[in-house]
């Protein structure tokens, strides 16, 4: 099956104005259509700037110096007209509060669709689809200040999904949420992965939910892309991840420690359930 490269970043360096070090340095990255990519790394590593660069917010909304190229669907991000790239790339930010621009959940969901010129019938159809997907049907008439943080983040996700972008970027979407709300966000992402052919990039610190979904992982550290690989081999390098301040999920860490002590040599399990299975097999031997 032919898989097209929809994001191509080459020798890309970005330095915000009035800063001494670049936020991103010499980044080379290719992402194929339909991939689910997890991005991890400590604070200040450049993850958000990378997301903004793919969505055109950098350099569109920020002043700075750019070197290299960031192409989306083969076209440099600056070459897109205002608002054109955002129809292809949707971004969900970490703070749900700041993403609400309207007075009710419904207004928020339809705002993006109206912006891209959809007809009333299309808006209605997509609204039904997205509210069902994100379980927001009973909140449509609520104003933003009356719903919980988890609900707000689902609204932010739904508002972007309703625009049906080919690429969806989520920048720490669950950083302000409790485990239940976090699970619901990833449930939506799992459905998207299963049912749609979106390319999804998730920047996240909490890996328990992300790892089972991700096809590939990226490690960012000190403005650089340090590691990009398929999920399993990526986490086999847990020693390096730990050195760079990125902590693998507990189950993986446990098997990594076993490996360090010479008690285990195989692949690290990606989930707690996988870890339990593996442990049972090991105990049985």
């Amino acid at each position: 099956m032919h898989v097209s490269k929809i994001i191509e970043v080459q020798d890309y360096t970005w330095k915000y104005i009035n800063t001494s070090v670049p936020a991103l340095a010499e980044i080379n990255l290719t992402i194929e259509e339909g991939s689910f990519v997890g991005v991890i790394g400590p604070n200040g590593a450049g993850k958000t700037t990378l997301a903004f660069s793919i969505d055109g917010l950098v350099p569109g909304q920020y002043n700075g110096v750019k070197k290299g190229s960031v192409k989306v669907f083969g076209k440099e991000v600056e070459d897109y007209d205002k608002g054109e790239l955002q129809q292809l790339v949707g971004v969900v930010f970490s703070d749900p509060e700041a993403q609400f621009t309207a007075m009710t959940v419904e207004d928020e969901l339809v705002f993006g669709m109206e912006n891209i010129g959809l007809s009333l019938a299309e808006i209605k159809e997509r609204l039904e689809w997205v509210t069902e997907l994100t379980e927001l049907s009973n909140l449509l008439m609520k104003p933003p200040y009356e719903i919980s943080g988890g609900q707000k983040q689902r609204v932010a996700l739904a508002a972007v999904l309703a625009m049906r972008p080919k690429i969806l970027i989520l920048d720490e979407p669950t950083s302000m949420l409790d485990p239940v709300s976090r699970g619901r966000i990833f449930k939506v992402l799992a459905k998207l992965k299963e049912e749609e052919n979106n390319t999804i990039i998730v920047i996240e610190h909490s890996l328990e939910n992300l790892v089972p979904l991700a096809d590939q992982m990226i490690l960012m550290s000190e403005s650089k892309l340090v590691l990009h690989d398929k999920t399993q081999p990526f986490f086999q390098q847990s020693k390096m991840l730990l050195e760079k301040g990125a902590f693998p999920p507990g189950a993986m860490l446990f098997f990594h420690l076993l490996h360090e002590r010479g008690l285990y040599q195989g692949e690290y399990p990606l989930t707690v359930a996988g870890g339990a299975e593996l442990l049972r097999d090991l105990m049985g031997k």
Partner: protein
Amino acid sequence: MNKTLLGYVPNESPIYAVHPFVKLYFLLVVSLFPMFVSAPDWNIILMVVIILLMWISKVNMSTLKIYIPVAISMGTIIFLSYTVLGGTHPEFELLARIWGINFYWERIRDALVVYFRVLPMIFTMVFFLSTSRERDIIVAMRSIKVPFVVTYIFAMALRSAGMVLEDFGIVRQAEKARGFDPAGKSIAYKIRQYVMYMVPLFALSLRRSEEFTNALVARGYAFTGKVSRVKRADYILTHYSYKYFDYIFIALITIAFIALLVYRYGYGYFQVDQSWLLRLLRSWVS
């Protein structure tokens, strides 16, 4: 009862059946009535009518107390402007002289006339805010074809005000958590300490503006360029339609306004010297 950014609205109310434009029309037109009425009697009647409308609309009257400070401060400012700061007028009737300040009947009368013009305007606004959610205002504006960008900027202003209030609450809680309690302190102390709130609030507002702009761009919104010229569907308006009673209300408000103008300028009604209330007060203070 539901909290809005602008006040409180009832959970259920017959007025929700009315199109938002009618409520906005009521606000805009009826708040003009007192400008053509000098006699406080009529303005008091208008206030009674508005209170009746609030009662019919199931507005929780206890929530209206948040507007009492506004009414009192307006009254105080008007009274002081017309009396203490009203100057010397030998041609007016002097009622009393207290601490060297002259209190003339005409100035007190004028203060009352102005105050009873302002009060119904406040009542009309309170009625509107107590029966309309933020969305109603936007819908009303869009239904009379106010350009989208104008209604959107208005909505963003409301949203931003709400966010500043939420941030203010967070900053206040953070200050309290660190042992700051202004209860029982002097006003000067409170003002000094409130300035302290402004610094984080200002920094937060700057950050919010950046995030807000990013959110707008990420939703494909642009004030200029090709995208800004895309023909927008207005999905929200599809939820609202004018009913026969909306037209009746619009007609009634319009007729009442025209009648007011005719009686005011055609027959000389609503003048100060026709006010029985002022006559009663005049006889009482003399």
